[in-house]
């Protein structure tokens, strides 16, 4: 890795994050996040429009197709920042829809005038996308206008009225949908489907990383100021040691996400990609739930109230930690890959 390249992605990521500040301010906007909960789709279409204007949905569309052609490192950096702010809007699904559609990405979806999401998952607990007619765990579907749907038949772009939504409210106040749809007339070939799924898994891990990072910060702030027995509780060694355990996991997750993103950006083989996505997601999911458990415990009684902001992070972690595979699914996937590694 030459120094020039390092600089380039870092600078790109800085610019993307800076522009994303319009929708996810550095000091967070948890009041807005709180208000958006349990209200319609659980997110604000106007914010999606703004994200479109900022060009976020073009990140993974190639330059030849009119996009920005940015890498997974930049995408992960953005995802991390979105996670820090608990952004409820389906920005990452829209980016992944762009990655799938490339030159077929509709102008309105690029600009955010229409909300686009994507759908891939075949069955509960499955990491497969080859089935057709029904897709599960579609993020941001309530409130979406367009659906990029991948299956073994190819990639279809469906309007809202071509899909039947089955929506379920999630703990964070959003909705997760399963969709069903009739086989569409036009399907594009989509050789990148598996690769986009791995990218999405990685980006989702980065979102969980950001969430965990901010949840730890909030918890550390609380440990510094909250007193018990006339001492700040953060001075108690047992809590200190447990806090360092979270910190270690967090830094492992960060390192693994960005090293994996670098491998993805610089042409990793299929096995490396498959392993990388599963491993990074495994760590991030466990991190998010680890932080959640400890954040509640360290906040004490405050931790189990809905009014404390830390609860927003916990409920988001619970809602999203298992998307793109719960830990047991990911470990089973890695166990399969053990033999592929052997054969290779």
């Amino acid at each position, binding site marked *: 890795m030459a120094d020039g390249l390092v600089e380039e992605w870092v600078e790109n990521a800085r610019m993307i994050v800076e522009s994303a500040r319009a929708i996810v301010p550095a000091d967070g906007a948890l009041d807005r996040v709180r208000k958006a909960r349990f209200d319609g789709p659980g997110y604000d279409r106007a914010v999606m429009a703004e994200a479109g204007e900022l060009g976020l949905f073009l990140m993974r569309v190639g330059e030849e197709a009119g996009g920005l052609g940015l890498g997974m490192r930049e995408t992960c950096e953005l995802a991390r920042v979105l996670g820090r702010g608990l952004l409820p809007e389906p920005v990452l699904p829209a980016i992944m829809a762009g990655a799938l559609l490339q030159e077929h990405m509709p102008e309105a979806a690029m600009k955010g005038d229409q909300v686009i999401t994507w759908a891939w998952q075949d069955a509960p607990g499955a990491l497969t996308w080859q089935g057709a007619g029904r897709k599960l765990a579609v993020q941001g579907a309530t409130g979406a206008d367009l659906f990029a749907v991948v299956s073994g038949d190819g990639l279809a772009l469906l309007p809202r009225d071509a899909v039947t939504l089955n929506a379920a409210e999630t703990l964070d106040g959003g909705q997760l949908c399963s969709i069903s749809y009739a086989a569409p007339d036009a399907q594009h070939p989509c050789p990148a489907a598996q690769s986009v799924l791995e990218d999405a898994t990685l980006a989702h891990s980065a979102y969980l990383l950001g969430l965990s990072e901010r949840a730890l910060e909030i918890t550390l702030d609380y440990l510094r100021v909250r007193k018990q027995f006339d001492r700040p509780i953060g001075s108690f060694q047992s809590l200190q040691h447990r806090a360092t355990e979270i910190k270690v996991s967090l830094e492992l997750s960060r390192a693994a996400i960005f090293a994996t993103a670098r491998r993805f950006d610089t042409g990793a083989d299929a096995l490396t990609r498959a392993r990388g996505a599963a491993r990074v997601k495994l760590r991030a999911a466990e991190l998010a739930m680890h932080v959640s*458990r400890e954040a509640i415990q360290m906040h004490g009684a405050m931790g189990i*109230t809905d009014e404390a902001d830390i609860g927003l992070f916990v409920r988001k972690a619970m809602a999203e930690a298992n998307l793109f595979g*719960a830990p047991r699914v990911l470990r089973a996937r890695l166990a399969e890959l053990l033999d592929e590694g052997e054969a290779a």
Partner: protein
Amino acid sequence: MKDLPDFNAMSDADFRTLARDFVETNYPDIPRYSLSRLHWEDVKPWYLVLSEHGWICPTWPRQHGGMGLTAGKHLILIEEFERFGAARVNDIGPVMLGPLLLKYGTEAQKAEFLPKILSGEHVWAQGYSEPGAGSDLAAVRCEAVLDGDEWVINGQKTWCTLGMDANWIFILARTDKTVKKQAGISFLLVPMDAPGVTTRNIENLEREAEFCEVFFDDVRVPADYIVGGVNEGWTAAKALLGHERVFIGAPRLSSAAMTRLKRIALRAGAWHDPVFRDRYVALQSDVADLGDLFETYVDMLRDGRPIGADVAMLKIFQSELYQRISELMMEVAGEDAGLAQPPEADRQLHAAATWLSARPTTIFGGSTEIMRNMLAKAILDLPS
């Protein structure tokens, strides 16, 4: 109220049958197996049925309207009610205040308050915790000053479980600021409709109003609404923490959760997965071991032996075990783990509900950290 048989003279098996028949026959048309606490309006029918049959205060002496059960019989009663899935009533009066009044109350207090607990006319809340004090219960700042023949109370209490359902509250208040923490605290009884009492609900992580804060602004109560003597409230309050600790450590929460875990695993197609089973049997062993440890304390209760500080081990292990079970549930539930409502509208299948309901168990009733501090010193004899 009916004439009650001598329950303690019955064999355990006979009493178990009686308790089972009782709940099956008398349980009203209200929810069973609820993972969260029911509010008074929902659980009141059950309270009143228990009251009517003289079963509302199992541990009180018979001459005061209780069932006079031994610890062993009481445990059987709890087991049978839980097996049936009977809702937990607002039981702070029967479980907390009643025994305290029986031990420390004046005859007048007993005569005034016990019958109204029995009848359900008084629904009590507990006012121990204060904002910012957490597990440091002795850090009481809520203040009571004697003004003629009345206490004038100013301050705040919080984490009053189901406090919004209560019409009376007992509190710890500071009545002497010149002495060291525990020494200047008194135990007072306060009607919640007294002028100057206001409340604010607190929603828990499940977004249900489970707790409330209670504010006292120049609230006046008669001088004799004090239990256990002026500045002796701490002793009275502490004395209550004995037997309950055993029951908090019972394996029931965890074993019921294992049943739900199995159903969630069956639904997710994980029940026959050897990896899942490996974890399931480890948790099952933990539950069984906890059951055996629990029984050693039940034996002590049965034999009338004193319960030592080591009983905290039960609570620590039970609460963390319950949490670990809930964590495996979440993992097995997959994408459904994130849903706000139960799959198939069946609360038993709702991993998140168990996960959330398991959180307070390591925080309330003495946090795990405080309990470990205490065990290290009192039981392991480690230095300060």
